[in-house]
């Protein structure tokens, strides 16, 4: 990907491919899951070639999502570790929501909201995997009692709804904070974007002369 001179790498190509594979799986799972959750949305099954196809494909997409999200965890867990600054940032959420980021604690690579999205999904996806396997009747019907499967379905639905609400927040934040979408499609941000939204991350890049996504990246020396 050609990157305009002077911009910073926010997400590498691998990260972006990994993210969009996860996103595609999530959207397909959400559409098929909602179709099976509420009769008003059953028409979404047509997108999958009908109810039988939808029912058959949903768990397989789920497995791809699990593998894909594991890749996200490998790439992102370190930058998502919770710090004391995150508490202060979360307490100043009103200012953030009003687009007044001055006076809010400086943010490293991810802010507290992004970290919450990351860790919520890191928790919910294994729950969805485990409960989903229990009700994947074609292969796993005999592995648990019907009563267990009833609760598995209930928990699966509740976890999925939580994940969908978090996903909506995630998508809206990407639309709201301009420049974020390009950070995940083309992978780069301007120094001003980094200064405004992730100043601590920006400082660490500037101090080492890195063009991102992590400070002190030796490969970036040629860009200086």
């Amino acid at each position, binding site marked *: 990907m050609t990157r305009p001179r002077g911009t910073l790498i926010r997400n590498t190509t691998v990260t972006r491919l990994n993210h969009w594979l996860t996103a595609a799986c999530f959207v397909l799972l959400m559409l098929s899951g909602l179709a099976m959750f509420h009769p008003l949305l059953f028409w979404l099954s047509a997108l999958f070639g009908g109810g039988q196809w939808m029912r058959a494909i949903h768990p397989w997409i789920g497995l791809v999502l699990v593998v894909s999200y594991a890749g996200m965890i490998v790439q992102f867990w370190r930058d998502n570790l919770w710090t004391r600054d995150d508490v202060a940032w979360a307490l100043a959420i009103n200012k953030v929501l009003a687009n007044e980021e001055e006076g809010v604690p400086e943010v490293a690579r991810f802010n507290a909201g992004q970290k919450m999205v990351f860790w919520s999904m890191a928790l919910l996806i294994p729950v969805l995997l485990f409960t989903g396997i229990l009700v994947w009747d074609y292969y796993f019907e005999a592995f648990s009692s019907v009563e267990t499967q009833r609760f598995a379905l209930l928990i699966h639905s509740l976890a999925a709804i939580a994940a969908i609400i978090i996903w909506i927040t995630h998508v809206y934040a990407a639309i*709201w904070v301009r420049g974020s979408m390009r950070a995940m499609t083309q992978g780069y941000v301007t120094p001003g974007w980094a200064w*405004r939204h992730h100043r601590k991350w920006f400082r660490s890049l500037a101090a080492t002369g890195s063009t991102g996504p992590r400070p002190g990246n030796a490969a970036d020396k040629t860009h200086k």
Partner: protein
Amino acid sequence: MADLQSQDYIRRSATTLTPPSVRNHEAEVAKLIDVTRCIGCKACQAACMEWNDLRTEMQSFEGSYDNPKDLDPSTWTLMRFTEHETADGNLEWLIRKDGCMHCEDPGCLKACPAPGAIVQYANGIVDFISENCIGCGYCVKGCPFNIPRISKVDHKSYKCTLCSDRVGVGLEPACVKACPTGAIMFGSKADMADWAGERIVDLKSRGYENAGLYDPPGVSGTHVMYVLHHADKPSLYAGLPDDPKISAAVEFWKGLIKPVALAGVALAAVSGFLHWVVAGPNEVQPEDEVEAQHLLAAERSKRDTENRYIADEPA
């Protein structure tokens, strides 16, 4: 069948609208299985196979008269044999014809996510409409009697239809017709309850104090009822549930959380939109770019100074 009786539904799975229901002057039917008169001949099983053209796979003998061993997609009714030893040391052979109970409040229908895959006719029969079935197995979770079975071949759910095709044209179910002892009766639910009442009086007079009718209120009654010698302990009869109810997990999953969850999702989306309208996008300002360039320049000159210092060091 689905087409013949489509104006006859009182319940239809995964449907938020009222199903066609003008044909409402129809008597509720019931099958009465008098366990006390059953001799275990399996004529009902054979008749079911014959009428419905069902043949399950050959299985091996494993020390029980139950044959086949369990209900399956091709076995819609099954004689279950229980050897029960009474308090005074006698052996009772309890033989129960298992199969769909045709609940008045069907858990399978409540759990089903596919519109019209499970219907209940005005006469009370609960029927699976295979063309709409998606094979998810939710009906299995909804059922308090462990009845529906999903085919591994065509991924459809199967169970006793109460011979809805026969009943629809004024015939009795095949198993009823075949029963040689009159242990299986069919008629209006009221008539069957009356007949059961007479049988129970008779049984009590012959020492079966706990004889009674099994028409469990937990599922608002059933359209297949049993006369039991030990109605105080239905579970003696190969695990017939003592107090069958749709599981609380299923009721919650199919009840309150459906509207609440959709409202929550809608609220999240609307909140985002309203935030956009009120606060608007968070855009990088020209000052941000200027500040950023200042910092970059400062850091660059700092590094250059350090590099020069390092370069000046003697090797």
